[in-house]
């Protein structure tokens, strides 16, 4: 929020200081003056109506919120019916907790859900293990003295964050498919005789997904920390230097402790998103070979619901996922309040 304040002050200086903006201000005010009577703070009635009128202005947007955020929650009732479109819900059979029981009692279903949970935990776990990487990346980049070099590296490494997963897959396909650039080059050099199956095999699927995630997100993830480092009081470094600390000791005793609060908040957020891997990445990379280890919860819900057309079962699964996620969020927030005295939501 520091950034905001600075910007706001700049804008304010400009607006107040420049004659041009003063002119537009009084001009607009004068133009609308005759149309509208001034409100007097003493008149309770009119200020009440004014408050209600203000509310009326936001009603159209509130309707959007209801339609697209609250109304879909009623879709959870589909988890208790045997809904098979195009038969409408009113004619579908009410089955109670059948879908939830099926997840536990049907051995095949239980095995599938179990594998999906393991994948979700594995991939999210790797994400949390590598959550320190952007921090190290920022610290290492900050140690380089050339400002020009730092800027170029930052610009180039942030770029992949702004492309879609489909495009990442296009890149992966161009480079790593059987006839892709990497395989062709290795074969030309006679290092391999058969193309390596990078994409259509099930070896190290989690690690590959983690690697693509790092390729896309490492540079971007470090920006927060670089901003954090820039905001550290130089006096702390001077004091450390006077005490005889070298560069490495300064990193360990000044930089890292100063960045810890930021790291902790981001870590807590990623813990609360433990079940929400999103599906774009895993959807584009999934194929018949790696399906077993790439199906995370979000992708599984899609595959069951849209692929196999079991809308009710998919709803039941995603409903459980949402509920657990909300509980996780509150737990994490509670932990944050206990340890740091600050809430993160």
């Amino acid at each position, binding site marked *: 929020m520091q950034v905001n304040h600075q910007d706001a002050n700049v804008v304010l200086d400009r607006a107040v200081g420049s004659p041009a903006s003063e002119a537009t201000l009084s001009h607009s005010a004068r133009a609308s003056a005759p149309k509208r009577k001034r409100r007097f703070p003493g008149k309770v009635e009119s200020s009440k109506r004014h408050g209600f009128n203000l509310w009326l202005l936001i009603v159209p947007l509130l309707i959007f919120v209801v339609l697209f955020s609250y109304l879909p929650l009623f879709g959870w009732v589909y988890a208790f019916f045997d809904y098979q479109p195009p038969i409408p819900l009113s004619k579908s059979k009410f089955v109670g907790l059948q879908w939830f029981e099926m997840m536990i009692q049907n051995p095949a279903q239980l095995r599938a859900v179990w594998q999906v949970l393991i994948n979700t935990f594995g991939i999210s776990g790797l994400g949390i293990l590598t959550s320190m990487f952007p921090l190290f990346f920022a610290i290492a980049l900050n140690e380089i003295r050339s400002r020009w070099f730092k800027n170029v590296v930052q610009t180039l490494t942030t770029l992949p964050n702004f492309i879609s997963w489909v495009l990442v897959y*296009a890149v992966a396909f161009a480079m790593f498919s059987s006839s892709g650039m990497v395989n062709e080059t290795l074969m030309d050099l006679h290092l391999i005789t058969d193309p390596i199956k990078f994409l259509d095999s099930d070896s190290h699927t989690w690690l590959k997904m983690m690697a693509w995630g790092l390729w896309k997100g490492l540079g971007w993830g470090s920006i927060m920390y670089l901003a954090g480092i820039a905001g550290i009081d130089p006096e702390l470094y001077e004091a450390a*230097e006077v005490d005889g600390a070298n560069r490495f000791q300064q990193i360990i005793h000044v930089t890292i402790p100063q960045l810890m609060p930021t790291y902790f908040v981001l870590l807590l957020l990623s813990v609360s998103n433990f079940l929400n891997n999103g599906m774009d990445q895993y959807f584009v990379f999934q194929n018949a070979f790696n399906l077993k280890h790439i199906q995370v919860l979000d992708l599984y819900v899609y595959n069951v619901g849209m692929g196999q057309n079991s809308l009710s079962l998919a709803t039941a699964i995603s409903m459980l996922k949402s509920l657990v996620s909300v509980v996780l969020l509150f737990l994490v927030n509670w932990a944050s309040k206990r340890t740091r005295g600050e809430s993160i939501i």
Partner: protein
Amino acid sequence: MSDSMAIESKGVSPLLQRTKGEKVFNVFNIVFFILFAFICTYPFYYLIINSISDNTLSAAGKITILPKGIHWSNYVEVFKLEGLGTAAMVSLGRTVIGAALTVLASAFLGFLFTQEGMWHRKLWYRFIIVTMYFNAGLIPMFITMKNLGLTNNFWVYILPAIVQPFNIILVKTYIESIPKSLQEAAEVDGAGTLTVFFKIVLPMCTPILATVAIFSAVGQWNSFQDTLIYMTDSKLYSLQYLLYQYINQASSLASAVKASAGGALNMAALATQQTPTSIRMTVAVIVVLPILFIYPLFQRYFVKGMMLGAVKG
């Protein structure tokens, strides 16, 4: 004595001061960053040089450093593919309309929630903000959209994205940092709430609104999942979705290639003849080019955008 000398000499020649360990670290550091920056950018370069090279060479993966047999016909041919022109319009349309409406709505709500007189202001503010923390899930969302008549409808790209809680927080915080006296002065002069919004608040919020605009535009351009879930009508496919199909569905590509093959089979024609590889790479470049172009513009908004991302997950 030696301490003060060390501090003074720092400004003169920092290199002299570095110990051996620090020098080794520095070399490793620089090599690592050069390597990682290369890995992050080379794929884009690879796509671009392949999309303009001899198609027989690019299909064999032989173009790695410099383009060979440069020609631009891929870009001409690719727009003759069925659906690509429409998809480009859909992507462009959703990006422009979506970003504009999101900015307007975020500014409007952010501003109105600073107006203390509003009827149950805090309640309605929380009503919106709390939607950040729960999610009905993919299937209930799909069923709701279907019931609202928004499947196979362009507006499904726009409407659900208009009210974004985090953008509202961002704008509201920003407006609260502007002194109230400005608005009060205008009100004394008789300006109504809407006049204050359009003539005073909106122009003053440009920096924060630019952040919101750019990040929602990039989000709209890159969005893929909504086409996948809500659209079966190929006229409403986005570029991202079309690219995915070209990569994954060999059949749709093969027919496209056949359609573009005009008969002539001599070597010269073969070099510019469309291949599955050439189509994939060219479409990929078309998808990434707008991002590459606006990228230098929005770098300055990174830190604020980061805060957007941190909460959206």
